[in-house]
């Protein structure tokens, strides 16, 4: 208890200290001679431009690499359709499930509709306290080329359930997914073709939000398209995707077994496994048309719970393999991908929250509002353009694009505050639990 109190006090000191020094700087500048005040405002404008520059650089790099990946996909599509039927090895789909009673049957039924000649669906009940196992067991059996198997184990967490699935899987390729997700019929067919290349160990799928019922989930739908899939498409071009998403990742089973499966010492087993594969020199590709629909948190509380776990989990995973960051020459592409993961997970949220506060205070104190408005307009044009481009490229719902106006100043700011505190709690090693998000059975 004393340790937690100490951690909170230190976190508080860091945040309040940062804010206080920012405020002190502004007050001191206000009391200084006019020429100094002018210089202060000018420096603030330069910082605003630098802030914008970082974003422009991020967007240009990601959009450019993503576009190259898109061209590659289109070219592959042109020559690949007749080849696809030559390479369709059997696949095991592992579905770890903990208290997923409301939706487990509809998930299994959706998996039975996949367009693939031979596969098994392996439901691993992770010691659920509801009737998940019974509901799943009702659908056990064989339908066409698909076999449904259900196993149960004592509760040990998602990573252990996935490991159990790995050990029981009968086929050379395994697709790991979440029990709150559904796959598009062509997902297996589209993802498996990447394994013609023996250097590829895994393929990351394209995750989309299924329950676009309120503003939170609509913001998340845009975030998945613009904030998660756009970087993933770019990383796919350099064969170094840094997170294979939990709802859709296809792997070579022998590689995972050789590497010891999923580690159980982080809260982001998907990020951890991805870094483990990259560290061993394996290639990880991205498949735009391997689509998984997932249920996103519908309330702010559940959203914070999810992002808190993601942030701490990613930090735990990166800390385990920090040597990648210190050896950029070993593999520049992997280094770039992991650096981007750390930048977007930790550095950017700090910059974003403190930057916005600083600019707002300067605008109030020095009447530098017009600069702030220009900055906001440029940022918004950039966000709108990126949202439009990514929504069009994914043939998604165009009504999501206008949300980009409030995306950065409302949604991302809230997420970044949560990331900032989660980072501090991870640095000071505050105890955490898995924090399961409530399932509503919407998909």
């Amino acid at each position: 208890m004393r340790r937690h109190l100490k951690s909170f006090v230190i976190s508080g000191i860091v945040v309040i200290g940062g804010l206080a020094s920012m405020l002190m700087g502004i007050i001191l500048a206000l009391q200084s001679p006019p020429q100094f005040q002018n210089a202060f405002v000018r420096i603030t404008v330069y910082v605003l431009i630098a802030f914008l520059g970082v974003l422009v650089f991020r967007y240009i790099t990601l959009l450019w690499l993503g576009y190259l990946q898109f061209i590659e996909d289109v070219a592959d599509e042109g020559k690949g359709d007749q080849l696809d039927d030559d390479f369709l090895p059997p696949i095991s789909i592992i579905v770890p499930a903990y208290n997923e009673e409301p939706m487990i049957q509809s998930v299994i039924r959706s998996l039975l509709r996949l367009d693939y000649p031979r596969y098994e669906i392996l439901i691993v009940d992770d010691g659920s306290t509801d009737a998940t196992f019974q509901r799943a067991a009702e659908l056990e059996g064989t339908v066409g080329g698909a076999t449904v198997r259900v196993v149960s184990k004592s509760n040990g967490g998602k990573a252990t359930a996935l490991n159990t699935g790995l050990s029981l899987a009968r086929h050379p390729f395994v697709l790991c997914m979440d029990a709150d997700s559904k796959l598009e019929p062509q997902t297996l067919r589209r993802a498996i073709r990447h394994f013609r290349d023996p250097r590829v160990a895994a393929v990351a799928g394209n995750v989309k939000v299924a329950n676009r019922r309120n503003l939170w989930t609509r913001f998340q739908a845009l975030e998945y398209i613009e904030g998660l899939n756009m970087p993933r498409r770019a990383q796919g071009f350099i064969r170094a995707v840094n997170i294979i998403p939990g709802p859709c990742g296809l792997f070579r089973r022998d590689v995972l077994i050789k590497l010891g499966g999923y580690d159980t010492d982080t809260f982001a087993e998907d990020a951890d496994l991805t870094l483990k594969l990259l560290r061993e020199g394996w290639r990880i590709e991205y498949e735009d048309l391997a689509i998984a629909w997932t249920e996103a948190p519908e309330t702010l509380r559940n959203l914070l719970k999810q992002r808190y776990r993601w942030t701490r989990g990613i930090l735990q995973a990166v800390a385990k393999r920090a040597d990648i960051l210190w050896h950029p020459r070993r593999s520049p592409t992997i280094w770039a991908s992991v650096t981007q993961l750390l930048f977007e997970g930790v550095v950017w949220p700090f910059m974003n929250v403190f930057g916005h506060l600083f600019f707002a205070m300067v605008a109030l104190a020095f009447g530098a509002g017009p600069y702030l408005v220009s900055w906001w307009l440029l940022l918004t044009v950039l966000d709108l353009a990126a949202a439009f481009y990514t929504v069009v490229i994914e043939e998604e719902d165009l009504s999501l694009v206008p949300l980009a106006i409030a995306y950065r100043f409302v949604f991302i700011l809230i997420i970044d505050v949560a990331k900032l505190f989660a980072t501090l709690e991870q640095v000071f090693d505050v105890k955490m639990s898995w924090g399961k998000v409530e399932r509503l059975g919407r998909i």
Partner: protein
Amino acid sequence: MDLLQLIVMIMVGTILATIVLAVLSYGAFRMRERRMPVSDLQSMTGGPAFFERVRFLPTKAAESEG
């Protein structure tokens, strides 16, 4: 008040209100998490269940016994 000033006020207000809302929401979320009871397994083993390593590959000894 001209249009520019109005936009500035809206922007600054939105930024500050969002950050305050986010900090309060985060505080409320963490307080609720703390009040939640630990799971039975966690209380039995005295530690978080998640970190319990499960070995899934059969050992040679187990195979020979079988």
